[in-house]
């Protein structure tokens, strides 16, 4: 019983929940989005700041203000660790890897090289009701990043 719970609530997740990284809304930013999980009401407001790098745009900062459960809060915190400092292309690859893990119903073996603390969410994939929690922050980041790039193209 407790083993099942422990598979979901890994120490890494509880640590990020209690001490979230990169929390708070900061300037500068090019796009701000607000995403909600309509089934439970969890919310995140998230800002993305991109800069130009040698291989295209780079994620310079991701800042956020979020209300939600331990899974959604920790996933957002881990996500910021994973994407900040990477090129947008690399970060999108990590996003795809995390999405594959979450949609794998517990059958996907996570790659720690790519996902780092994100591997702690492997257990979440076995709880279909919680997958949306783990993806809330990621979806907001992808949306804000896409908006930034699209707006950049327009200018």
């Amino acid at each position, binding site marked *: *019983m407790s083993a099942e719970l422990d598979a979901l609530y890994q120490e890494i997740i509880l640590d990020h929940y209690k001490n979230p990284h990169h929390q708070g809304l900061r300037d500068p930013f090019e796009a701000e989005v607000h995403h909600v999980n309509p089934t*439970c*009401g*969890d*919310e995140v407001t998230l800002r993305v700041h991109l800069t130009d790098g040698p291989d295209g745009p780079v994620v310079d900062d991701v800042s956020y203000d979020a209300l*939600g*459960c331990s*899974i959604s809060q920790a996933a957002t915190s881990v996500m910021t660790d994973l994407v900040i400092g990477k090129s947008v292309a690399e970060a999108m690859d990590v996003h795809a890897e995390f999405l594959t893990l979450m949609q794998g119903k517990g059958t996907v073996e996570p790659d720690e090289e790519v996902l780092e603390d994100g591997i702690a969410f492997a257990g979440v994939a076995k709880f279909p009701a919680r997958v949306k*929690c783990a993806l809330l922050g990621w979806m907001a980041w992808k949306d804000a990043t896409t908006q930034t790039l699209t707006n950049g193209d327009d200018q």
Partner: protein
Amino acid sequence: MIDGLLPDLEVVRKDFPILTRTTPAGLPLVYLDSANTSQKPQVVIDAMVDHLERHNANVARAMHLLGAEATEAFEGGRDRVASFLGAPSREEVVFTKNASEALNLLANTFAWAGEHQLGPGDVVVTTEMEHHSNIVPWQLVTERTGAELRWFGLTDDGQLDLTNIDELLTEHTKVVTLTWVSNMLGTINPVAEITRRAHEVGAVVVLDASQAAPQLPIDLAAMPEAERPDALVFTGHKTVGPTGIGVLWGSRALLESLPPFLGGGEMIETVTMERSTYAGIPHKFEAGTPPIVEAVGLGAALEYLDGIGMEAIQRHEQAITGYALEGLATVPGLKVLGPTDAHARGGAVSFEIDGVHPHDVAQVLDSRGVAVRAGHHCAKPAHARFGVQSSSRMSSYLYTTPADIDALVEALNYTRSYFTLG
């Protein structure tokens, strides 16, 4: 023994086969999510199976033995609903898909040409404690018609704030729609008084009885006319019946004055290429093949509840709710949202625990076999009123035992220790 519990509680529990199942971990099931949906007694399951096995046909149009039997069974369900509500007439009982559809039927037909058509300058009044299904249809209709939607607020202890009732109920107020019992706060609203006041200004009163119908005796015919609502809705699956069927009761005067909602088979008198004329109530509002076996199941469900007695069920709910409120008060850091007097409230109790998100509460409880709901319970404005984004909710019913509550309290203490809150 707690005063007020159903005397045959163990016998009642045996009527609900699902209560004997266990979780994959082998734990007994502690079902405390009845305000979300109730469990079904064997008689309901049997009535539906028997209908499908022996009497299945379409209703009101099949000119054969099975058609006659199916029609009789379906209309028998209507009779049972009428008797359950104490409806002045069985023809005032309209079957819908659920309570949401019943409310949408009303809200939509108030937008269309007719005696009750809403327009600019008109006011619809609802409350801040409504389920989204009694908010969104009225937001849609007021946006479409130019009418204004206004709200009764809430007091800090989770009651309706009636201090501005004279400002809200004026000659411009055409509809007053409110819940009898809150699905989040558990509050039982003073619906007789509000109905009387609303009728004084000529408004139509709609009651959402989705949480009231399972818990409170309802006798429409016995209500003084001034205090009787013009329409009342509830859903089958919260009253130990099946999903897929809801009820709109409307006074004959109201139903006859509203235009049809959905068009189709069964709701017509005659159809030509130029125009159609419509069936009388209730069929005017029942386009298409209705939920037949669901009506049979609902009839069996309400017969079951009446057999136990709604007064006895109400006493049981109050006794269990009182016991639950006492138990929840022993959990450190737990705060109940809504009234804390078991006699002034229904059996849905929402609460927060400092430091643990409701989603995580529900997850840990589930690992102990305890089923509760976590989230906004489709009542986001009520949560916003109390400055919370979501809550956990336990809700009992006629099969809930004090042992279920003990298991909840034990599991809540475990939840606190799991998240190392001491």
